[in-house]
């Protein structure tokens, strides 16, 4: 994809102006896994965003019925198009439309960017520890893409837990980013499959894994954890028990307590 235009300024999210509904036009769909697609949208007058923020999406039926949901932004602030990566939930209302019905050229109503806490700014020089479960990788990918775009060399590690090899979102791009030699290391864990020749972990996140992956406490890493509620709960509790400062750990959860990761 050509990197011709740069999407807007970066400081706007601190303004207090109203977030108006606006239209994006679907320009490209990238199938990431059997259940997950990335939607690349052209959004005229997009006001810019920070890595980690999300948008609200609103669908309207012909009788006026509407449904709204929030989706993390997958693209970096400095990418040419706004990207959302959406996991299709079989019993969902909006995600089966976004992954399956929406076609290139269709318009999609959205507003944003939203959220000023779960964000990473390129000038942050703390070592970065990103921990993702499933589609929780999406806002963390925005951070890694931004890190690459601004040529940040802050040491970064991503620990990414997926069910099976086929469920690994952004697999090729992550392996490219991890091979760039700019200080990023990507660690994969699979929870429901042990493929032959797999070099990553094949179990749920545990203390031994975090001891191998996490930056030492004395390096004061910035920690971002995103995923299903039980996954985020487990990972954040492990880090707190290991002595990491709770306030350095930012979390974003989705789904209910007691669900399966």
């Amino acid at each position, binding site marked *: 994809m050509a990197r011709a235009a740069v999407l807007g300024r970066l400081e706007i999210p601190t303004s207090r102006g109203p977030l108006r509904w606006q239209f994006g036009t679907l320009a490209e769909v990238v199938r990431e896994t059997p259940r997950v697609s990335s939607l690349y949208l052209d959004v005229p007058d997009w006001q810019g965003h920070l890595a980690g923020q999300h948008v609200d999406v609103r669908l*309207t039926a012909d009788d006026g019925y509407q449904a709204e949901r929030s989706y993390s932004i997958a693209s970096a602030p400095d990418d040419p198009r706004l990207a959302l990566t959406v996991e299709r939930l079989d019993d969902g209302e909006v995600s089966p*439309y976004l992954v399956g019905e929406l076609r290139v050229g269709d*318009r999609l109503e959205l507003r944003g960017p939203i959220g000023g806490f779960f964000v990473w700014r390129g000038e942050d020089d703390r070592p970065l520890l990103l921990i993702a479960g499933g589609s929780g990788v999406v806002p963390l990918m925005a951070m890694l893409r931004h890190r690459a775009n601004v040529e940040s060399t802050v040491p970064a590690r991503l620990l990414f837990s997926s069910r099976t090899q086929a469920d690994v979102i952004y697999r090729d791009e992550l392996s490219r980013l991890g091979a760039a030699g700019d200080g990023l290391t990507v660690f994969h864990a699979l929870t429901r499959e042990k493929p032959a020749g797999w070099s990553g972990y094949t179990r749920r996140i545990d203390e031994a894994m975090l001891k191998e992956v996490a930056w030492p406490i004395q390096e004061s890493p910035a920690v971002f954890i995103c995923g299903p*509620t039980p996954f985020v709960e487990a990972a954040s509790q492990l880090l707190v028990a290991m002595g990491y400062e709770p306030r350095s750990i930012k*979390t974003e*959860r989705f789904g*209910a307590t007691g669900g399966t990761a």
Partner: protein
Amino acid sequence: MGFVSRGFRGKRRDNVSSSRVPPGQYVVTDFPVLSAGPTPHVNLDQWTFSIEGEIDEPKKWTWKEFSALPADTVTKDIHCVTKWTKLDTTWKGVSVDTLMEGVDTAADFTTVYSDGGYTTNLALDDITANKAWVVYEFDGQPIEPQHGGPVRFFVPHLYFWKSAKWVRGIRLQKEEHPGFWESNGYHIRGDPWREQRYWGD
């Protein structure tokens, strides 16, 4: 004719009266979690609840004292700004009116604060007159830590981020000081029926 999302029908939920579901919300039967950081572990032996700030004599209860106060059991619908609404949730706890009995204050605003550093701002009018509780049971059981237990704030007529988890006290203030989410893009009051989600709504 306004915009229509081509090919979208949606899942209608005819079994739920739309008069109970604020604009932009959808009904869930499970109980999602929204927290900005790790879940703190709160020890009730060291827990206290305070009312402080614009008050001549600050008030403070230990857990033993607090749990002996007269309690209400209330059933209310809750609305999270992340779009889910959960109907008919039942909570037990102490009404803020009970805690404020005998308090004479010049404050119009409050900051409700929690273990872990979380804060949220609320007008005093939004938490008095039978509108807010400090609760310790959900569905007849102690509240799970992930859902704010052992003790959380409960102000169901506003978006649920106002119902601070792991609550420790109320600071009475003459001026409004935006809390945690209110400083991070979210609306200063958060009325779901007016869809006051974000700054400028």
